[in-house]
């Protein structure tokens, strides 16, 4: 698979400053971002709206020029190379199919630009149509295709030129939920099979987790955290990341004592120790991150007691908002069997899985 651990596409202290649209002041859309993307890797840029994901992708593709910093591909500085000379193909949110061309001609477009021979074009387009399970649609026009088919054609059109890097800007956001899940796994499978280095922009964290080798969480033009999906979910480095990736409860805790790399704390009436990723000493006030599914509810008078403020039955799971000492916590119970359903107003014991607790400085 991926990762020979040599960055093949490198962003080196990249910044992009736009003048504000009203002409007053400026927007730091991308703020001093450094990033190494490995050969064959699937990397996702994830973040809230306006955090600079699209701008970063457009800097990579060459549609925007960096205000500062360099972009390197295989060790060569490509910062000022025009986008059509970068050997990267982009899949757009709006698909951007050429409306006046047939599916076949859309896909053949990049090959014709490269002056590939007619017979080879035919063979390669047919191969990729097959790969995308679109074999009979070659003569249709884009406006005669469904959204999912258009998306496939857009992907096929980029794949057929065998680019060095594939770029995606929220390609699935115009599809309905079911199709999105299906296309997601198709994209993943094809990327694995062809082993094309890919950078993917999305604001959907589930999509990011499902697709990526590594995820870059961005906030206000900066990288908030970079890591494998599991790493980011388990060990968010900030409240922002913890909150943005999945849902999280934040509980204030005080360090009782520190032994080696671990801190002893008291959480919801339970004594426990948790790994430290930063320096701390006894008496420090920290924040504990507890995922909703790590909290457990049980009719047990020996446990810390919580009051159910709101109960939502969702079929495969139940969600509760409970009140513990004046703080509201979200709890997700994934096996809502009959005796495990709690009613609003009811008092219930609360506990948690100690291994899942993650500490933050604030």
């Amino acid at each position, binding site marked *: 698979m991926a990762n020979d651990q040599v960055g093949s596409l490198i962003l080196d202290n990249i910044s992009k*400053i736009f*003048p504000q649209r009203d002409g007053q002041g400026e927007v730091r859309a991308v703020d001093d971002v450094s990033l190494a993307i490995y050969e064959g890797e699937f990397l996702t840029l994830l973040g809230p709206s306006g955090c600079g994901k699209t701008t970063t992708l457009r800097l990579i*593709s060459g549609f925007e020029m960096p*205000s500062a910093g360099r972009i390197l591909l295989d060790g060569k500085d490509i910062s000022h190379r025009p*986008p*059509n000379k970068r050997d990267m193909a982009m899949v757009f949110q*709006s698909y951007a199919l*050429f409306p*006046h061309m047939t599916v076949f001609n859309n896909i053949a477009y990049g090959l014709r630009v490269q002056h590939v021979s007619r017979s080879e074009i035919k063979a390669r387009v047919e191969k990729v149509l097959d790969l995308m399970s679109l074999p009979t649609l070659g003569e249709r026009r884009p406006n005669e295709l469904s959204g999912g088919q258009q998306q496939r054609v857009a992907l096929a*059109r980029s794949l057929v030129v065998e680019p060095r890097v594939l770029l995606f800007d929220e390609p699935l956001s115009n599809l309905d939920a079911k199709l999105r899940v299906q296309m997601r796994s198709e994209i993943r499978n094809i990327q694995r099979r062809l082993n094309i280095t890919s950078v993917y922009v999305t604001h959907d964290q589930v999509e990011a987790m499902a697709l990526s080798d590594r995820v870059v969480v961005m906030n206000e033009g900066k990288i908030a955290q970079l890591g494998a999906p599991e790493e980011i979910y388990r060990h968010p480095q900030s409240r922002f990341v913890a909150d943005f990736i999945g849902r999280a409860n934040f509980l204030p805790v005080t360090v009782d004592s520190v032994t080696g790399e671990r801190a002893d704390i008291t959480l919801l009436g339970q004594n426990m120790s948790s790994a430290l990723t930063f320096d701390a000493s006894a008496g420090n006030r920290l924040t504990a991150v507890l995922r909703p599914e790590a909290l457990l509810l049980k009719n047990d008078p020996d446990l810390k007691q919580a009051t159910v403020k709101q109960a939502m039955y969702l079929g495969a799971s139940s969600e509760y908002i409970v009140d513990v000492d004046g703080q509201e916590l979200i709890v997700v119970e994934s096996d809502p069997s009959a005796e495990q359903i709690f009613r609003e107003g009811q008092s219930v014991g609360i506990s948690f899985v100690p291994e899942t607790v993650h500490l933050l400085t604030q």
Partner: protein
Amino acid sequence: MNNLIRGRPIAEFRRIIQDPVLFIGLILVVVFIIVAILSPIYMMVEESLTEKGQELFDRYLNSPVYRTIIRNTLEMGLIVAALGTTLGFLLAYIQVKVDVPFKRLMHITYLVPIISPPFAVATAVLLLFGRNGMISRGWFGIRYDIYGLDGLSLVLTLSYFTVAYMNLKGMMQALDPALDEAATNLGANKFRIFRTVTVPMLIPGIAGSFLLLFVEAIADLGNPLVMGGNYEVLSTRIYVSIVGLYNTTAAAVLSVILLVPSLLVFMVQRYWISRTSVVSVTGKPTGTPQQITHPLVRWLLFGAGLFVSLFILLIYGTIFAGAFTKILNINNDLTLDHFDFVINGYGSEAMKDTTKLAAIATPVAGLLGMVIAFLVVRKRFMGRAALDFATMLGIAVPGTIIGIGYLLVFNRPNEITLPLLGTITLIPKLTGGRAIFGGAGAIVLVFIVRSVPAALRSGVAALSQIDPSIEEASISLGADNIGTFRRITLPLIRPAFFSGLVYAFARSMTTISAIIFLTTSRTKIMTHQILNEVENGRYGNAFAYCVILIGIVLVAIVILSVAVGTTTGAEKTMEGGA
């Protein structure tokens, strides 16, 4: 940090330089604008500011005669703008919101004045409604003196309302019908919707049409020459100064006086209206507009729409009848003499020359319009807005002014003397001769200058409709800017390109004010010949010229639609496929 922002347009500029073909395109466009638009205007203003010119300014602005002329000009402009906009609005409203018979046919008649050779409408109206008019005298027995403001307002409104009509019709169709539906839901009746939703939403379109018609009306030369009578306006005075008095300075001074309101209106149009027009044109209106069903209102509107159609048919019918009869209304014997005169006789040279020069100008103007539109909409560089502005000056500035400017600039070779190289001819003398570089060049250039703005606007409108990521997709697949323009952009804006070409040809064939000073005995232009015939009272010949001119334009439209195509190819299969 601040210099980073300032550095940005420079970075964009560097990107443009990196694409040499695009860079050359930009240079050519800039040279064109400087040589063909800015320098003539500059020269004319300079001429007006000479010592002699300043004296004339003093004299004109203080003389009662000239004050009346200025007041007449503005008065006529305002009346025509108001009448034309109202008429355009009414007809557009009928087309979009009222269910009446013969809609499509009426629509076509409203488009006819686009190809109106100057003098044709005015002369026909004179024959019908003048002192000996077939209708005024013949039917009603009145000797009506139509010369003056009333006749002028009529013919100018008739010649120019189509602009307002098309503008407003487009806007009305783009208005989201959901607005009407929402207002209806809230309990408003049709008239209330008209008053509180339709009209306010169209204010930018109404104001834009008004200003456009104002500029067109005060710049018009042909109609006041025929219809003005004692009612003198600036454009006719300018004409007399040059053609009658050979006083270029006086013409330049009067031109500057005419230029002031034109430019003022043009700037208001650009900076005020374009800023405030946050119309919710959603692009994809859902549902169909609510129709007016009240029987009385419906039939009244139908009557009005039909009346305008019939009136236009009457005018053009008169032109045809006049071309095929000896002397219409006096000797109604059918004859082909007038056509013989134009086709085989004295007029054949003008016919061929005009068509040839217009045919040279048309593709240049159409392509130039699309290229400038592309640069303006898609590229970010310093002076983008200035490029658009300067191009639009070609039509915002009255044609007489362009014509005089051209006389001043191109009536001699433009030379530059360099230290070592000696004298180099930058631009040869472009006026006077018949060959392009022998002299007809100025006329071709005027045709182009007057046509590019319309092509630019339709190009801009079309381009703004196209998702820029479609072009980016092409570039990301390896195509360069020119390849992308040729394979993706141009096909997608083909309808705009086509209408730009049609407009350019029609405008070139019918323009008079800008080229009347540039024609000589060696370059004959049809519109100028028509004026000669009208002035000598040979209406039959004039009408034959007009009919032939209209015929040439129609043939050109057919040729263009075959050669260029009127569709993008994206819509074709919508009917055929699926």
